[in-house]
């Protein structure tokens, strides 16, 4: 331990507090603003205390959307986001665990080539391959659909590598014991590999759900129908830059709503998430 001195202690705390304020203040302000009526927000009269119309604002955001520009209600957008995030998270986990299983446990022709191909895609995030990907999705007729939103983001080198590393720590004897017990590759996968990967899957789910939820560029590009907007894209659409006033009370309420599902996922899966990162159950 470093020697404790009152001054350095104080300094450390000041810096920490400054950090907290920088991070928390915008969130707090959003929360406050979402409870005021639009006139007060526009006049800059809201201060730092909650306003009087929280229910009205949230009701409007959830079921009606902004008025000045016609936008989709938050319930629809959240459903879209939820579908996209879930499909991405579940799809990524499913595909990654299967491909990692193949790469680790099967000796097929071109195994290393397959592995390196997956590995190389780490260097190709959506933003880099966005034009060809758009073309493919458009040609497949998947614009303005859940499949178009999620499928191109599902293939994942990161998750495959993570599962591969985990599988390599499963002792070979476990495979052999399964063979002697008479379990074929499928049974070994379902009865041993999947249960052992439970915590890893949970950790990945949290990360991937948030990744999917927070997607902006891709949904912006492939959805033209407002009812297909995800909530992250939707917030941007509610902000008007000319010709009309922005419904800031709605924007703020929608922003708060957009934060809730990721927070909920982290809170509910925190125990498994931490376990997945630190514990190896073998």
């Amino acid at each position, binding site marked *: 331990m470093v020697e404790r001195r009152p001054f350095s202690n104080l300094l450390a705390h000041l810096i920490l507090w400054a950090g907290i304020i920088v991070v928390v203040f915008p969130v707090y302000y959003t929360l406050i603003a979402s409870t005021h009526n639009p006139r007060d927000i526009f006049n800059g009269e809201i201060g730092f205390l909650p306003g009087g119309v929280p229910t009205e604002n949230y009701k409007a955001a959830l079921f009606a959307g902004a008025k000045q520009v016609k936008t989709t209600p938050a319930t629809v957008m959240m459903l879209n986001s939820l579908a996209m995030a879930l499909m991405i998270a579940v799809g990524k986990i499913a595909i990654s665990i299967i491909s990692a299983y193949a790469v680790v446990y099967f000796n097929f022709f071109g195994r290393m080539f397959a592995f390196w191909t997956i590995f190389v895609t780490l260097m190709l995030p959506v933003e880099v391959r966005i034009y060809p990907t758009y073309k493919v999705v458009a040609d497949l007729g998947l614009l303005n659909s859940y499949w178009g939103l999620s499928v191109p983001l599902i293939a994942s080198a990161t998750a495959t590598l993570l599962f591969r590393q985990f599988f390599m720590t499963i002792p070979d*004897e476990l495979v*052999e*014991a399964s063979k*002697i017990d008479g379990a074929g590759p499928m049974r070994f996968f379902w009865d041993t590999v999947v249960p*052992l990967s439970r915590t890893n899957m949970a950790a990945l789910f949290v990360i991937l759900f948030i990744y999917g939820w927070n997607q902006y560029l891709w949904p912006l590009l492939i959805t033209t129908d407002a009812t297909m907007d995800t909530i992250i894209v939707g917030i941007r659409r509610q902000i008007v830059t000319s010709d009309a006033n922005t419904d800031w009370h709605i924007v703020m309420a929608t922003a708060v709503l957009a934060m809730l599902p990721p927070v909920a996922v982290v809170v509910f899966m925190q125990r498994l998430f931490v376990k997945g990162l630190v514990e190896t159950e073998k």
Partner: protein
Amino acid sequence: MAEVGLKNVKKSYGGMQVIHGIDCAIKDGEFMVLVGPSGCGKSTLLRMIAGLEEISAGEISIDGRVVNDVEPKDRDIAMVFQNYALYPHMSVYDNMAYGLRIRGLSKAEIDERVNKAAGILQLQELLQRKPRQLSGGQRQRVAMGRAIVRDPKVFLFDEPLSNLDAKLRVQMRVEIKQLQNRLGTTAVYVTHDQVEAMTLADRLVVMNAGVAEQIGAPLEVYAKPASLFVAGFIGSPAMNFLAGKISGDGRAVELAGGARVALADGRFASSAGRKVTLGVRPEHLVQDGAGTAAHFQLAIELVETLGADTLLHGRIDGKGDGLIVRVDGATMVKSGQTLALHAPPGALHLFDGETGKRLSD
């Protein structure tokens, strides 16, 4: 219960041959131990019997059926691994029941078999626990339970005790032996520990560099090691080796240092002048009593007191070959002393100076 037959079994990885043709017939109900230093191919051989490694050449049969191309699950064997290889996410009960479920046994029969095995191994209290909640010895028992419930023709053990501490190892050794006696199942057991090998085996195969140097009962291997390697490997501390040659009359070995060690009778007369290695176990050297001529004067350099015994390390005449002697623990000797030693003719082993093979006596 079944015989296991190995006929000229070979294994190569790429161009590298690691097992050079092993022939061995394991009898029904026999406890066969494969023993040798690490890398001698003993585990590979066991894994070939299990079906976890392909057989490059030769033939392995279990109960008269050649199993070269039979899947592990269809060979009717059960294997206990060094690290137990229990399924970490399954309870003790499920670990034992898993193989039976796959084979499609009825729930009642699985229950009966698992409970019976648990009874034999005193695991009844632990059936609902997970492997990580068990101690090393308990995990070992579960691994054995998983083997027992299958009611296999052959048990295969791959160094099952090497992850346990010394005390537990002795206890489990006894348990394994009793269990195998009770079940009467043929067992093949791999170990590098020669004490385990000697105590467990009905017969043992001493392996070195992919070759079976000797196959025989423990005492036979101890009393008549077939080669220099076996002589040095079995027995602790290891046998003393002294280079020399058989004298002209074939009645003694003349050691490089000049000493003469008398041989029993004249059995080696025909080998007069041959270069040999003389072997004598530390426990067979006797302190020179009345009437026998001393063969060596041993200058003692180090004394290891084990309690029951004392090991004396020294050099012949203080400058020649090193020698170890085991004497009674009550003997009071100090390093720096010189001890007159005698090697009785009956306790001598002669090995060819070039091939290392035992000279028949």
